[in-house]
């Protein structure tokens, strides 16, 4: 599976246009801060409405302006890892992780709670409140929550930006394993060249 994206998205007075040809692995959206990279992810996830174009992941059409298709976010199967985590503060780590898992049809699940926590190294955190997690722990939980929702693809918005160098490496390795072991297409937003060079098989530069 891979992305096939061609979008024009309004953002303020500008229109952001982006084309992403199908490619396996990680596609990086690269460019300076404020250029509209997050807006593109939001459009793919169905959180903002593009003016034209299409979004496909594998065989599934999530959006097609010409055909009048615009799936709501909950039907898109985009596991979105937000820059600011957005864990649910009133739920434990376990119930954050299981939130999407409980909603997705069984045949779409490809990982269970035990596998995900082992994979991410967060087994010891399960019964903690998310209010007491470090930045790196919170980011792992956010990634786990997205994976457990049985997504068609992952959208990652600068998942390393709030972490120090040590923790970055740990999360980078997790992302590489998702790419290699789970073979999920990933749309990865970053403004860091080194990060992009290490991870991405295709780089789309926004300017």
């Amino acid at each position: 599976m891979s992305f096939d994206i061609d979008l024009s998205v309004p953002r303020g007075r500008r229109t952001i246009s982006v084309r992403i040809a199908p490619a396996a692995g990680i596609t990086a959206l690269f460019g300076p801060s404020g250029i509209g990279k997050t807006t593109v992810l939001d459009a793919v996830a169905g959180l903002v409405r593009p003016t034209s174009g299409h979004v496909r992941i594998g065989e599934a059409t999530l959006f097609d302006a010409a055909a009048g298709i615009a799936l709501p976010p909950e039907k898109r199967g985009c596991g979105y890892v937000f820059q600011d985590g957005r864990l649910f503060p009133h739920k434990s780590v376990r119930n954050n992780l299981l939130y999407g898992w409980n909603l997705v049809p069984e045949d779409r699940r490809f990982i269970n709670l035990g596998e995900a926590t082992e994979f991410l190294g967060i087994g010891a955190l399960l019964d903690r409140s998310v209010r007491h997690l470090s930045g790196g722990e919170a980011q792992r939980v956010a990634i786990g929550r997205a994976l457990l929702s049985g997504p068609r693809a992952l959208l990652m918005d600068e998942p390393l930006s709030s972490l120090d160098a040590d923790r970055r490496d740990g999360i980078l390795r997790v992302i590489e394993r998702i790419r290699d072991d789970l073979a999920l297409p990933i749309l990865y937003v970053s403004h860091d060249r080194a990060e992009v060079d290490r991870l991405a098989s295709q780089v789309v530069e926004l300017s």
Partner: protein
Amino acid sequence: MLSPAEWAIVGLSLKVAAAAIVLTLPIAFALAWLLARKRFYGRMLLDTLVHLPLVLPPVVTGWLLLLFFGAGGWGGRTLQALFGTTLMFRWTGAALAAGIMALPLMVRAIRLSLEAIDTRLETAARTLGASPLRAFASITLPLALPGIAAAVVLGFARSLGEFGATITFVSNVPDETRTLPLAIYTALQVPGAEASVTRLAIASVVLSLAALLVSEWLVRKGGRSYVL
């Protein structure tokens, strides 16, 4: 201790206040949600109308209720025609008056808690497969719970203390609309009833303190609900 008649007054006050809250809470939540989340034509007007009972003299609110729900009023005639009933001189009328007086306080408390919720959490829930309704029920509602608890307690306390609108709208009928404040006022008019006034006043204080304690307990319980 309270006499049986005084216990009846306490019971009536609790019944009126409870009915007022049950009636008002869903309306207060809907109004708070509209005012906190939606931008629409007439929003300022709605906001002002909701706050009106807070700034109007309660007697005026009671008089307006009387005009509307009295025998000649549109609301009164409709109730009579549809259900063959009236709110006049009934405890239900007292509950309505108390509910309307409590409404602005309840809307404020709920609205503040809704405005404090990061709507991006609801967006995150949507991307994880939640419909708008489920995102509301599983994210918005639990996070608003402390505000809802505060609204219930504030509204309940306000209803227990309601005097002006009640006596204007449904008068001071024993066993029907004579709640604690009205009973205290009535006893004050009677020479030699000071002991009764004192007992009823103490009952008022105890009920209000109990309401506050319950709210504290609810808020603490809400704060721990992440383990659920």
